[in-house]
């Protein structure tokens, strides 16, 4: 294969790649790791360790978890997002560094990895387990390898006592990019023009019952009954709302590195990689517009002979079931509002010159991509006076995009650029809580920033 991951990526370490990416492109792509890339042999190698540590929850608590982590880096929840290129040989070396139970030096139980959706996975080394080879200690490394056959959104989980270990945190995402794509700067998720996007984001949904984690911490694993678990914490990318809004690798969330904040400009195409990585169903509801579901479990929704993703469908809530992944494309232009979303008035010097889609075509204007059919149309209603209103932290103080209106002291403040903000959340609203405290859980925000606001 001639194409490489990029000049800088060739034969570099994952650490260097990660740093390079973080420096200038932290949110436009999905945070993760490409491992150690050997372009000559078309191999990506990941060295992972399972260990125990704590995550924090927004209600002020901490929870003991087990997590995968890259060697030399903090363990994390979810595990590192493995970003590989289709056709590459993937090697994952896994070592068990869990603490021993009751003073024993060997880990309290073995751990492993399975790769749903991949075929031809081989496991060597380690110890024999039921579903796959397992690691049973720091000196017992198991090596999994497979060829990433088809692009798509996948997950990996523990294959050892998964009812317990996945709740404990042993789960992560595996993203396979088309062979022509650079996993660090991808432009499409499948070998099909319909799968192209401007930005991609991951939404991995999980849940936890803290009681299980307490029993594990106290060494009372035998008292756990997985059939009776009652989750009280729900996660997006390993964080509970509103922690989901903090940036990737926020320093105070050592073991929860992945943000779920979504940002875009009007008219851009956002790829949503939704992953049901826990044990419950989570109906994910994007405010702002329908999304178009284009793939399930790493396969495009298309008939074999079609050149396009012809079985894609539009929906406003889609149920992400345990063990499945769904890819969807979301876009937003504000077309059809019947009022000027910029609040333009005649004589203000603004213009709207429609492109083929009817959106303003002058890229240097702040109202680039404005729906021209609504240009200069006044807001049809009078907004109530401030005393009558409650204000959200993301409220601009103005009905118009890009405008920041006056708000009472202490109100607003989270929407620095006057973007249009929509909540994206599980529509099983029970899951919008953290240990009985609302709001939280599977909840994040989409910010549609006006053009002129740089989104890294």
């Amino acid at each position: 294969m001639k194409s490489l991951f990029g000049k800088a990526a060739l034969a570099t370490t994952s650490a260097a790649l990660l740093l390079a990416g973080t420096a200038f492109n932290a949110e436009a792509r999905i945070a993760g790791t490409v491992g150690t890339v050997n372009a000559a042999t078309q191999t990506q190698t990941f060295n992972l360790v399972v260990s125990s540590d704590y995550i924090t929850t927004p209600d002020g608590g901490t929870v003991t978890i087990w997590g995968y982590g890259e060697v030399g880096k903090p363990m994390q929840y979810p595990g590192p997002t493995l970003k590989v290129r289709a056709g590459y040989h993937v090697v994952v070396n896994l070592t068990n560094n869990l603490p021993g139970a009751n003073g024993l030096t060997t880990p309290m139980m073995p751990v492993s990895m399975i790769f749903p959706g991949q075929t031809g996975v081989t496991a060597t080394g380690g110890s024999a387990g039921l579903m796959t080879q397992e690691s049973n200690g720091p000196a017992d490394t198991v090596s999994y390898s497979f060829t990433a056959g088809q692009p798509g959104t996948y997950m990996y989980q523990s294959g050892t006592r998964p009812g317990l270990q996945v709740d404990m945190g042993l789960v992560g995402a595996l993203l396979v990019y088309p062979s022509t794509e650079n996993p660090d700067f991808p432009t499409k998720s499948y070998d099909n023009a319909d799968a192209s996007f401007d930005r991609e984001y991951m939404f991995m949904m999980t849940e936890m019952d803290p009681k299980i984690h307490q029993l594990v911490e106290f060494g009372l694993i035998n008292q756990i009954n997985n059939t009776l678990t009652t989750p009280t914490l729900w996660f997006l990318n390993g964080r509970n709302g509103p922690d989901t809004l903090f940036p990737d690798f926020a320093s105070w969330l050592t073991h929860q590195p992945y943000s779920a904040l979504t940002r875009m400009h009007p008219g851009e195409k956002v790829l949503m990689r939704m992953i049901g990585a826990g044990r419950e169903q989570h109906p994910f509801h994007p405010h702002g517009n329908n999304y178009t579901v284009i793939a399930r479990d790493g396969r495009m929704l298309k008939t074999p002979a079609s050149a396009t993703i012809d079985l894609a469908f539009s929906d406003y809530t889609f149920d992400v079931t345990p063990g499945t992944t769904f890819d969807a494309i979301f876009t937003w232009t504000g077309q059809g509002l019947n009022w000027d979303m910029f609040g333009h008035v005649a004589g203000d010097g603004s213009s709207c010159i429609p492109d083929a889609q009817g959106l303003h075509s002058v890229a240097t204007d702040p109202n680039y991509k404005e729906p021209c059919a609504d240009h200069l149309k006044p807001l049809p209603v009078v907004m109530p006076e401030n005393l009558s209103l409650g204000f959200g932290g993301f409220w601009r103080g103005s009905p118009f995009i890009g405008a920041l209106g006056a708000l009472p002291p202490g109100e607003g403040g989270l929407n620095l650029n006057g973007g249009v903000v929509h909540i994206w959340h599980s529509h099983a609203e029970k899951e919008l809580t953290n240990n009985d405290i609302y709001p939280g859980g599977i909840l994040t925000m989409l910010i549609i920033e006006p053009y002129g606001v740089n989104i890294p």
Partner: protein
Amino acid sequence: MNRIKTSASSAAVLLALLGASGGAGAVPFTQCPGDIYMPEVINGMPTGNLVNGTDSVPDPFLRDLAAVGQPVIGPNPDYKPGVKCMHLAAGDGFVNMADGYLQYMFGFSDMTGTDSSQAMVNGLLAAHSPAPTIELEQGQEFYLNLTNVGMTNRPDLSDPHTVHFHGFPQAMDTFDGVPDTSISINMGSTLTYYYSIVEPGTYMYHCHVEATEHMQMGMLGNLYVHAAQDQSVAAQPVKDCAGATYNHVAGQRYAYNDCDGTTRYDVEFPLQLISFDSRFHDSSMNVQPLPFANMKDNYPMINGRGYPDTAATGPLPAGAAQVENGGIDSQVMNALVTATVGQRVLLRISNLSVTNHYTVRVLGLPMEVIGRGARQSRGPAAAGLVFAASNTAAYGNAGANLAYKTSHVSLAPGEGYDVIVDTTGATAGTYFLYTTNLNYLSNDTEDFGGMMTEIHLNP
């Protein structure tokens, strides 16, 4: 309310004056272009007079209120045929569960047609289950006035409220009703939402303030939009479809602008699946900590009633709720489906439970899923995932038809499905629509009831 001699004054100015003269929230400031007149009611009795008012009903004509008979003196210049308005009050109240249990709830009531000056009074203890149905036509401009009347039984609770139009396409946060991203309306005040209705389909609405609580408490309602294709001319190819060969039949309606009649129906019924956890509701009424994670809904319902109340026509026998509500019947909607043999029945099914997935089945009649997520079940019309806008030519004829026949449909919370039940050739009689999550065929400890209703198929 003053009677006014008609002038051509702008309704907007008039409304602004009314709002201003009302003082701080005394009279809800509703906005509805063309809304000038309404029937006068004194002490609950209609006088037969028209007065100027703000009842959220547009008036096509100006009248001389001072003259005998209040004759029409001309068209109302502010009247626009495509404008629809509603006025909802948000507050609390009581409902009767099918087993007689008295249930406290939060909810909406319909103040449309009531002078806004009365809404703060009439909206008290008037929470309805389900919330008043919002039925719209594609192409309409919709002004939705929301007045927060406060919680009579929870004077400690000064919660604002919102309306979230669930599934609205290309939504602006300004009118999306999410308190975290925009604004919510405080007690005693009124917020007017504006929507240009561009896409037909089955949506839903609910309050989004402290969504887990306010939705569990019952602020949930049906919302759907009729397709512009309904306006087609009989015996002519259906409207706005280039090259369409399907001829419109008078009286026929369409769930979507399908261009080929595949979503045609004769009668439609919204069926909203919801469920209450009475322990949560009781905790709320008694100002106790709310058990969010331990929610277990014990009253599964369709359109705010459990079976057999779902299939009862007319008002339910007055129970404890009417006493608590001061006589207000808060469950005016049923879930009975009635049709005659040969009709195509459109079921607009939505799930607004905050806890449970529900699967529902129609026993003995075929179901066909023809839409979901307020879109016809069609693949993209062209490369680039382009779904032709539903008001453009050849919408429905493009893209793979993804409709399918089934005997059940499964809905996650927040999902909506359009199902057509074709009764051609069926035997007249009573059929049942019910959840196949069989433990939810219960009204709490009554183990036969719950999420079930009847389909009365008449010869």
